[in-house]
């Protein structure tokens, strides 16, 4: 058993085109490290240099947004299903102002 991870189109260049990959870990953070070891570079698309979750993706554990589950500390276990989606956002506001509004 492992954690099943669904990867969006934009990140499939890291997974050799695979839509679903498997990983392991006890927290989302551990899972992402494990995934990055198999798919080099993936972590940088999910986690900021400061160590927080990227604004450009939404990550769900068993259909719950991880921002409500402790973010990178969200627990995961074998058999869980993790979904990564590109966050859909934008607007006329300048990027710096938008980032400030979002508290990032």
């Amino acid at each position: 058993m492992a954690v099943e991870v669904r990867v969006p189109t934009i990140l499939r260049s890291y997974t050799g085109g695979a839509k679903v990959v498997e990983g392991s870990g006890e927290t989302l953070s551990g899972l992402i490290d494990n995934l990055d070891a198999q798919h080099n570079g993936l972590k940088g698309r999910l986690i900021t240099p400061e160590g927080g979750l990227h604004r450009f993706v939404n990550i769900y554990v068993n259909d719950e947004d991880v921002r409500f589950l402790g973010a990178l500390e969200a627990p995961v276990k074998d058999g869980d299903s993790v979904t990564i989606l590109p966050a859909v956002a934008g607007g006329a506001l300048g990027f710096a102002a938008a980032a400030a509004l979002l508290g990032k």
Partner: protein
Amino acid sequence: MNGVLTIDSAIVSAIVAHARRDHPDEACGVVAGPAGSDLPTRHIAMDNAARSMTFYEFDSMEQLRVWREMDDNDEEPVVIYHSHTATEAYPSRTDVKFAGEPGAHYVLVSTREPDAEEIRSFRIVDGVVTEEEVNIVDATVDA
């Protein structure tokens, strides 16, 4: 311009009506279509979770539901649209930063003029914006 977005006039009307309804806040949504068809057939108005005049953001739980539904129907997001309510229908730097669906047509509607809409379509791939023609056709689907 290279590409072209072919879209039914009824769907364009629905997008414009949504943008007008939410004005002066930005409106946003998706038009799904059969995977690989490049034909937008099913209009889905999304909530702007930011409820802002200058920013839009899909609600993450609504997005998961809609993306899962598209997956189940063997559809993909052919069009991702939003409105600019005081500026032109051209992708902002924020739009480009966030653009995460390289296969989608990014449609922008400007509602800054009360009685005329500006509708433009773009590809946004790896931070590069390419405008494309919008070919509005009649009655290919029921919107």
